């Protein structure tokens, strides 16, 4: 809301400048973006061109002698319309215009002491400029006084405050509403609006059919005026519209806008002769067409409210008028509409079609008292500035409840909610400044809230108003006394994050929205992709399930910057729709490639590195019963270097290398559904007995077929070794010289121990030999000689 302070001062005294007003209003809840002069210029004066001669070295420049009142200066001017005898706007040496500072200069050898300005150069927004404002210098009237301020003369000496209002304060989208707010702020009275006019004796309503066929219209006034003269508006009115950001058109259109700015009630003026004698408010028919004011053909739906004549829609209620009944240069008779429509419907229609000054006001809610005031004020102004003859009577449809809004609030409640020490009288004073009728019995304030304050509906809203005028910043912070109850947070999620960081991975934060084509990748789960109805781009049109596509994008980004050692992880939500229901699970994903340890001693990531990360994590979380199984591997993974992660018989995720068809790079990934994992039992950290007797360590190596899995050999060793075999560790895997091509050698370190006694050589040798025998038999292995 762009507030012209000149306009505001019609209705309330403003004791401060625009910047202070902006600051003070901010402190009571109305933030502003800009406060200051309408035109940010300085050093301007009215001058009279005394002499004007051609520049000796140019075919279009003129050398002028300009009288500034207290001096005559020479100015070189390039405008085509400069000539002796006219009064002009001069920016003197040292003047500041938007983007320029005027300096003494020589133009093609001729001294120039200032600049003669066009309207455009004053910094007026482009939409307000007429061709002559751009093409040449401004020619002021004979009544302009040389040496005086041209902005004053043009009526453009105004200060504006551009407010960013909150959604509840529809009442402040009017000068009058602002006047009440400013009045409350400074304790000043709001002045009356001139609503006087004379009207004829006839009854317009008698011969006019107003049909309201939808409950989305609660109030409709239609009044006719005749014989208007369409012409330019008076300068002050045009300037106020300009200061408020609205382009002046002609007096009649301008008055409708002026009244909307002043009172907050949007109006629509129809050409009465084109409208006829019937006006209907109804919902649009499906696919009904309407040509709006801007000559666009709009296709409507049953959710749009329209104004119609006997046959067809002639206006889009609350949003934009229709082309067919528009007021034009030759219009003579006018029907004024002032109405209230369902704000929700207006909002939906305007969101779809056009956001206008009118729709913005309709959707925030209107005050029924202003609807009638707006009709009267329009008549007042049309009579004065468009020579209108006001027809007596008015067509009225009114279903608005006019009950007083009485809200009670106690002194105690106010103090309790705000947590302040305030006196009963201070509160009374605030209500009075706000212009609220209030009765007070020593404890309870009974407040009759004026109809303009549509934002106030409960006592808490009244407390908010007390708070904001008391000064919310005057509230002193209190240290709360709370019951001593320990707080909790999700320690598991943090444990996972901490462990992954400890294992040397960098945590990423990527977008949950990815291209829908990526969503089903890196998963064998059955689910429906969750898509966004109205995405910003196709790159972000669906919610991810696997986090791997995101991590892969992070990898690609870094690779493109020559950063190839990437070990990253992310914890985030996986979204899905299963059996018609939406859901989300917490996932952990990791991607590892390139060098894992330090820079000089390269140790490139392979399957066993990421497997180690997984084991470290699962061990840390206390899972004991987990294993890898070669099944249910997503097709984006290498079938020979990937597996499912199985905890207590349930697949909780996968691990492996990205398929060479997807990327030629050696990238290893892992993903675990943490919600699934956390639902599994884990072992608590408890002391386990340590043997008092020394370990006996034996090494053994077997040659087996390459297809034999170490896990199988270990299982045989475990069952053959008996309870004294405490651990089995692979310390070498060898292929190459001295081992046949289709074979490999695997070497194990076996550790034996008994908790009761020191093991004898014989006992260990017996167990050891049994292991060798079993492995040789069951795994088709050969003992490898040392």
């Amino acid at each position, binding site marked *: 809301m762009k507030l012209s302070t000149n306009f505001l001062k019609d209705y309330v005294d403003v004791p401060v400048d625009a910047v202070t007003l902006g600051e003070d209003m901010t402190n009571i809840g109305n933030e502003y973006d800009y406060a200051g002069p309408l035109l940010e210029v300085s050093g301007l004066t009215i001058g009279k061109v005394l002499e004007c001669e051609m520049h000796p070295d140019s075919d279009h420049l003129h050398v002028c002698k300009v009288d500034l009142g207290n001096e005559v200066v020479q100015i070189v001017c390039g405008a085509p319309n400069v000539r002796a005898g006219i009064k002009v706007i001069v920016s003197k040496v040292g003047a500041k215009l938007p983007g320029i500072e005027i300096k003494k200069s020589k133009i093609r050898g001729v001294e120039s002491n200032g600049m003669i300005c066009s309207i455009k150069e004053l910094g007026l927004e482009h939409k307000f400029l007429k061709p002559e404002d751009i093409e040449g210098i401004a020619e002021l009237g004979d009544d302009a006084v040389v040496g005086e301020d041209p902005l004053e003369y043009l009526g453009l000496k105004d200060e504006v405050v551009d407010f960013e209002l909150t959604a509840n304060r529809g009442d402040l989208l009017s000068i009058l509403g602002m006047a009440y707010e400013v009045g409350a702020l400074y304790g000043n009275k709001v002045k009356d609006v001139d609503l006087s006019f004379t009207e004829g004796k006839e009854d317009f309503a008698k011969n006019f059919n107003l049909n309201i066929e939808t409950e989305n219209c609660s109030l409709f006034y239609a009044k006719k005026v005749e014989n208007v003269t369409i012409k330019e508006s008076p300068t002050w009115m045009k300037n106020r519209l300009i200061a408020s950001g609205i382009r002046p058109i002609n007096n009649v259109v301008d008055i409708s806008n002026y009244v909307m700015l002043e009172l907050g009630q949007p109006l629509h003026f129809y050409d009465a002769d084109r409208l006829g004698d019937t006006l209907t408010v109804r919902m649009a028919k499906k696919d009904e067409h309407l040509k709006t004011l801007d000559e666009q053909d709009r296709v409507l739906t049953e959710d749009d409210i329209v104004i119609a004549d006997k046959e067809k829609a002639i206006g889009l209620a609350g949003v934009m008028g229709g082309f067919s009944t528009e007021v034009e240069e030759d219009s003579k008779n006018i029907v004024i509409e002032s109405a209230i429509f369902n704000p929700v419907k207006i909002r939906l229609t305007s969101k779809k079609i056009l956001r206008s000054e009118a729709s913005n006001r309709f959707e925030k809610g209107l005050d029924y008292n202003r609807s009638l005031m707006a009709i009267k004020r329009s008549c007042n102004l049309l009579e004065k500035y468009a020579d209108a003859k006001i027809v007596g009577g008015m067509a009225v449809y009114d279903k608005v409840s006019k009950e007083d809004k009485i809200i009670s609030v106690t002194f105690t409640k106010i103090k309790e909610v705000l947590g302040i020490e305030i006196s009963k009288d201070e509160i009374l004073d605030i209500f009075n400044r706000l212009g609220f009728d209030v009765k007070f019995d020593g404890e309870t304030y009974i407040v009759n809230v004026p109809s303009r304050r549509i934002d106030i509906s409960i006592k808490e809203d009244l407390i*908010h108003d007390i708070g904001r005028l008391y000064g919310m910043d005057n509230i002193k912070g209190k240290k709360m006394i709370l019951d001593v109850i320990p707080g909790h947070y999700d320690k598991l999620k943090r444990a996972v994050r901490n462990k992954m960081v400890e294992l040397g991975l960098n945590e990423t934060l990527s977008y949950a929205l990815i291209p829908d084509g990526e969503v089903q990748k890196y998963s064998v789960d059955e689910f429906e992709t*969750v898509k966004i109805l109205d995405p910003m781009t196709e790159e972000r049109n669906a919610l991810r399930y696997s986090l791997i596509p995101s991590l892969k994008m992070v990898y690609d980004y870094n690779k493109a910057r020559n950063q190839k050692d990437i070990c990253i992880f992310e914890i985030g939500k996986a979204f899905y729709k299963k059996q018609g229901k939406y859901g989300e699970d917490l996932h952990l994903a990791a991607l590892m490639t390139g060098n894992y340890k*330090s820079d*000089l001693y390269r140790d490139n990531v392979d399957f066993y590195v990421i497997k180690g990360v997984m084991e470290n994590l699962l061990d840390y979380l206390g899972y004991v019963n987990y294993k890898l199984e070669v099944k249910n591997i997503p097709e984006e993974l290498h079938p020979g270097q990937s597996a499912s992660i199985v905890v207590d018989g349930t697949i909780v995720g996968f691990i492996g290398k990205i398929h060479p068809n997807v990327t030629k790079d050696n990238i290893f990934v892992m993903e675990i559904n943490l919600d699934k994992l956390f639902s599994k039992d884990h072992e608590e950290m408890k002391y386990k007995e340590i043997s008092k007797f020394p370990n006996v360590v034996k090494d053994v190596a077997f040659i087996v077929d390459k297809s034999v899995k170490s896990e199988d050999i270990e299982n045989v060793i475990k069952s053959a070794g008996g309870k004294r075999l405490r651990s089995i560790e692979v310390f070498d895997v060898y292929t190459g010289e001295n081992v046949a091509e289709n074979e490999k050698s695997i070497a194990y370190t076996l550790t034996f121990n008994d908790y009761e006694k020191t093991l004898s050589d014989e006992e260990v040798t017996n167990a050891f030999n049994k292991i060798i025998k079993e492995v040789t038999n069951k795994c088709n292995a050969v003992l490898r000689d040392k």
Partner: protein
Amino acid sequence: MTEKIDNLIEELKKKFEDIKTLQELNDLKVSYQGKKGIITELNSGIKDVPNDEKKEYGAEVNRLRTFFNDNFSSTQKRLEDERVREKLEKETIDISLPSKRIKTGSKHPFNRIIEEVEDLFVSMGYDVIDGPELEDDEHCFRLLNYTVGHPARDAQDTFYIDEEYLLRTQTSAAQSRVMEENKEKTPIRVICPGKTYRRDDDATHSHQFGQVEGLVIDKNISLADLKGTLEIFAKKLLGEDTNVRFRPSYFPFTSPSCEVDVSCFKCGGKGCSLCKKTGWIELLGAGMVHPNVLRMGGYDPDKFTGFAFGTGLDRLAMFKYAIPDIRYMYTNDIRFLKQFDRKDDEYEIKY
């Protein structure tokens, strides 16, 4: 005899000095103390010495033996020292070469801030809750007093999945969840940090961003309590000298409502480019829980009051770590990520 021994000692002294290796030392020992060694021979020669000279002779040979033994052990020590010195010299390395340290990982600044906020509020007895990101309109809006078509919905351009489901635009959605789930309708003290989404993407906005919501419901809660709590929050995260300013504002789910500014931690309130010369930075939205919200959550607004607040996590992280552009938070350049591998500095507030 004395002269002879003097000469032998003189000769031996030179020999010890010339010895370079343990082998030479051992050879010397053999030639003096071996079966046919000089000292051995002198020793056995005593039988040919007349009796009255035997005592002197013995004493002289002993002098030679003592000299030999003393020098033998000192030379042995000298040689061993030399050998160790040589070994150490050989083993000397270039200590300036890179270490073999294991690369450490790092936590994303977004999550670092979440953890810090969590720790602070947990220490004040708040529970941390996690609401769904794929929310429904009811919890994200309607139960928070945003009626259908409410103009305040405009500020939160929403990603809809269908008519009812959406990506939460605010962690405030967790308010309605926690009230609903608390069947006993006992007092509530929670925060909900997490991801939020809005159809908005430019230099200062990311369509995905983070918020933390706080909610306290109890008896006799006031705006002053809210301010006191947010003062602790601001001082703990941004520094002890941080001040908090309340400005009235509007949110559908609170009344009274306010915006909360903190004094600019960069310039200390004097005015700088960060605070746009105002000395203040807008940090949170807050207010007293709206009676309609309490009622919809099953709480009697005549018995309970409460406050709620919400703030952007990305901005907090950006402030704390001086990150100049929100996009860096989501680009995941490894050079960016690796910077966040240190302990955090924390502000201590004293009372």
